[in-house]
């Protein structure tokens, strides 16, 4: 699911930055981490920017059918 992936990606990004900051990695490893990190950044930003505002109303009629309609909150 996207939500866990976002959260996981963010956590991975954090740990990548921490690892790189520690300076214990070799250049090849750092490069690899960097690539992964940039991927995560892109991924997280995409998720943040891709969602659209949507406010709906979920109701169930007497006959049991479920209806999703826009919710007028203005």
């Amino acid at each position, binding site marked *: *699911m996207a939500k866990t992936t976002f959260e996981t990606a963010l956590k991975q990004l954090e740990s990548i930055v921490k690892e790189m900051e520690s300076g214990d990695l070799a250049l090849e490893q750092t490069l690899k981490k960097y690539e992964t990190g940039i991927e995560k950044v892109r991924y997280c930003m995409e998720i943040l920017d891709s969602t659209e505002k949507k406010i709906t109303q979920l109701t169930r009629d007497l006959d049991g059918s*479920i209806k999703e309609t826009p919710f007028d909150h203005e």
Partner: protein
Amino acid sequence: MLDHETAHIYSVSLLTREIKTLLEDQFPFVWITGEISNCATPASGHSYFSLKDDQAMISGVMFKNQKRNLKFTLESGLKIMGLARVSVYEPRGTYQLIFEHMEPEGAGSLQKAFEQLKNKLGDEGLFDTVHKQPIPLLPQKISVITSGTGAAVRDIIHVSVRRFPECQLEIVPVAVQGESADEQIVCAIELVNQRQQSDVIILARGGGSLEDLAAFNSESVARAVFASEIPIVTGIGHETDFTIADFVADVRAPTPSAAAELTVPEKKYLKQRIDDMHQDLLSIMTRMLTFYHQKVDDLHSRLKSPVQIMTMFKQTLISLSLRMHQALQRRMFHDKDRLVWVAQALKGTVPDIVLSRKQVLDQTHRLSRAMGHCVIQKDNRIQQLAATLSALNPASVLNRGYSIARTLPDKKVILDARTVNIQDPIEIILAQGRVLTRVEKTIHGKDHI
């Protein structure tokens, strides 16, 4: 007649004490309900009143200490339920109820029900933290179970949109109070769970009395909240209100707005956080690359080709030979100087034989010349002296006619007439022979011939 010997006669105090013991043992604590009348609170702060119902009345007291915990004021006409112990006041032979706890009867039952349900569900472990699910950091879709009208839903939408303008909210309208409220809430929770489209549920309601919040204190709602596989955040009533649903929920927020704050992340902050990390990644990478670049450059510059090494040796060689040459030259100059100096010194001390020989010759010449000169001179002198000598020879004087007179026998030459006397013998020496005679006369003074 009363038999004083056998009959048991009580004193007033003894009887009173036994009654006291009897009552207090029998009714250590009782729950009692009734209406308060004749309530009085003197300066001591204790409250004295009567508790009555249709047919009976008992005196009651509640001491100042216990009154502290009351959430209402004691007053006549109030129906209460309370916990009391029965006590006998010996000096006046009256009995009374000493109240430990008291609450208005209507609310009391609700409160009691609340406590009972809370204890029951608590014992079952519904409130245990092990069951609490974490709220996702960035929920894609949020279901809001609350009244479709009213402040709560607007507050939630307002806060959510402010924090994350592109959030997806799904309002599931329910009655939040009244007969079917609990049933509707349970259905809504189940519906959202069936659809499996939402990442989190907000269960909310604005503030209200304990009665108004009844649905949220119901067992069915509590169990539905517990059963929900989707994490539930509650925002019910005001900050001070606690409902059973709050205890069971995964996260309890004090108000509907707070529930939205806890559920919806702030987009600006999230973006900032990712941006910061992005910058960190870039700067770390740049730093590292720069570092390795410099290192490689450095190593490269230190990596020497054979030509360079040869050149270096050549230069060393030239330099050394130059130095050697210079050193040698310096040494030679130095030695030369020294030689000149020593030669001069030597020259100064060795005698000049040629010169000396010449000098010796010169001196010899001068000596022999001087010697010759001197001999001639002396010869001349000798001849001169010989001439003089021959001139002075008495014989030659005598030859020229002169004679010499001498006294006899002294043979002293007579130069003055006064030295001789008449008749003195004298000798006269002539050029040929001598004449012996006597002095006849003396004439004194100078008498030239």
